[in-house]
C-alpha cells in the first residue's frame, strides 16, 4: 500500500499540521511516511501545501506530480491541483470560497463542508481535523487509535487536553463527508 496525498489551501488553515498528524499517525502504524511542504513565500499569507506519502515500502521521491488523493481547501489550490489527481483517484474539497467546483469526471469527488462543521462545533480551529476525518472516512489508511497516538506525539504535552476535541472533530468530519461524484 502506498498512498500519495497532496493537501492544499491557505496558510493558517492548518494544512501543514494536518499533514503532520496524518504522517505521525502513519508512523504509529509502523508505516513509512514523508511530509514535504512547499515552503517559503507561499506560506506567508498565500497558499500552503504539503505532500504526504504513507507507504508500506521505503519512500523514494518525496515530491510528486500526480497524487492518489488531493485535499483541496481553496480555489487557487483547486486550479493548481485538480489536474494532478491520478485517474481513478480521489479529490476531497471544502466548498467554502470555491467558485469553480471540480469538473473532472474520471475521479471520485467528495465534499466536506469542514468550515461549516467547525462553526457548528463553535471552534474554527478544528477545521483541519474535520478535513482529516473526511479523508480517513474515504481512505482509512490509519485508524482513530493511530491518530490519537499521532496527536499525542505531535502535540506538546501542554496541549494534550485538546486531543479529545480533535478526535471529536475527526468523527464529525467522518460523518459529514459526502460523495459528490463517482468516477465514470
Amino acid at each position, binding site marked *: 500500500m502506498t498512498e500519495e496525498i497532496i493537501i492544499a489551501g491557505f496558510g493558517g488553515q492548518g494544512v501543514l499540521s494536518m499533514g*503532520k498528524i496524518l*504522517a*505521525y499517525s502513519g*508512523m504509529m502504524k509502523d508505516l*513509512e*511516511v*514523508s*511530509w*514535504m*511542504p512547499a*515552503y*517559503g*513565500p507561499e506560506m506567508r499569507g498565500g497558499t500552503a501545501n504539503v505532500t504526504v506519502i504513507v507507504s508500506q515500502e521505503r*519512500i*523514494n*521521491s*518525496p*515530491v*510528486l*506530480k*500526480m497524487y492518489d488523493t488531493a485535499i483541496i481547501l481553496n480555489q487557487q489550490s483547486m486550479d493548481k491541483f485538480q489536474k494532478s489527481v491520478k485517474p481513478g483517484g480521489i479529490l476531497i474539497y471544502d466548498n467554502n470560497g470555491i467558485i469553480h467546483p471540480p469538473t473532472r469526471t474520471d475521479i471520485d469527488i467528495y465534499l466536506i463542508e469542514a468550515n461549516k462543521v467547525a462553526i457548528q462545533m463553535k471552534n474554527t480551529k478544528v477545521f483541519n481535523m474535520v478535513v482529516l476525518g473526511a479523508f480517513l472516512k474515504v481512505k482509512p489508511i490509519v485508524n482513530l487509535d493511530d491518530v490519537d497516538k499521532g496527536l499525542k*506525539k*505531535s502535540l506538546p504535552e501542554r496541549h494534550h487536553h485538546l486531543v479529545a476535541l480533535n478526535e471529536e472533530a475527526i468523527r464529525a468530519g467522518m460523518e459529514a463527508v459526502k460523495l459528490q461524484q463517482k468516477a465514470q
Partner: protein
Amino acid sequence: MGELRLMKGNEAIAEAAIRCGCDAYFGYPITPQSEILEYLTLENPEPKTGMVVLQAESEIAAINMVYGSSACGKKAMTSSSSPGISLKQEGISYIAGAELPALIVNVVRGGPGLGTIQPSQSDYFQSVKGGGHGDYKLIVLAPNSVQEQYDFVALGFELAFKYRNPVLMLSDGAIGQMMEKVELTDYIPRLTNEEVIKRTGSWATHGKPEYRKHNIVTSLNLQPEPQEQHNHHLQAKYKEIEENELRYEKFQCEDAEYVFVAYGTSSRLCQKAIQLGREKGLKLGIIRPITLFPYPSKPIKKAAKKVKAFLSVEMSAGQMVEDVRLAVNGKRPVEHYGRYGGMIPMPDEILEAMEELIAKVEKKAQKKAEKKAKKKAEKKAKKEQK
C-alpha cells in the same frame, strides 16, 4: 530499536548534535536551515549536556567561532545555506589549512546571488572543488533522507577528528524541510576536558602545561618551502581519505542498461523514475554517491563496462556531471538533466529525459549496426564480384 520520531531534516541535525556529544554550535539565521538554530536554542542543551549554542553576528563570525572551538580540540559545528556558505568559505579554508576537525552543514538553496529559498544542488562546485582559496578538500557527505541527516552528524564528527579535516554535510532545502521517521540514538556524553586534552593534546590549544611546548594553531607559513611541505602532507591525507572513506550506494544496477548518477534529493527522485521506468520495461538503475569527496569514480568507471549510458541528475545546471564524465572518460555517453533556481525536477520529467537519452543512444547504435551491415554487404558483394 531507538526512539522513533517524525522530524524535519533540519531538526534531525540539531537533535543529532545534542545526542552525539557535540560541544558547540554557532549559527546565523538563513532560510531554509534556520530550524537548526531554532531547535537548538529551544532545546537549550547547555544545562543538560554542556553543549554551547550561540547565534553569531554573521556567518563569517560563526565559522570563526567554530575555528576557535575546534582549535581547542572540541566538537564544533555550524550550519547555513548557500549564500551563507559563500561567506564562510574564507573560514573553511583556514580550518582546512590549520587542519581542524569541524562539521559544516549546507542546506542548499537556489542561486546565484540571493537566489531563492527553495531547494537546489548548485553548490556542488563550492563544496567539492574548493569554494575557498588554496588546494584543500573537504570530506563531503550527501544525505538523501532525514535519517541520514541525523546519522551523518555523528559520522561527520568521527571523520573530522579521524583526519583532522573539516567535513561538510551537503544537504538541500528539500531534505532540510521535509519530515520523515528518524530512529534516535542514545545520548553520548561530551568528552570531559581531560579526555579532550588526552585526545588532542599534541596540537590543540588548551593552555600550555609545563611539560610541553606551546601549541600553535595556524595556517600560515611565510616561507614557501614549508608551505609546500604542508601541502604535500595535506594531499597525502586526502589520498588516504579517498582510499578509506568512499561511500556510495547502488540501486537496481544488477541488470541495468541505463544508469542514473544522483546524490541527495535527486537520488530519491531518480529512484521513483526508475520505478516508473521499470513498469515500462526499461532496465534502469542508479549509482548514488554518499560521499562526494571522495567521489565514487571507480564504481562508475566499472559500471561503464556494461552500462550503455549515464544520466547525471542534479538540481543544478550541471556540476556533478563533470565528475561522472571524468570517471567514464569517454567510454559511454554521459548526459545531464537538471532543474535549477529552486525547481525540483519531477520523477516523470527525469524519466522522460532518460528515455530521450535511451532513444539517442539506441538510434546511434542502430545507425552503427546498419553501417556495419552495409559495409559487410558491400564487402561480400565485392568478394562475389571477384
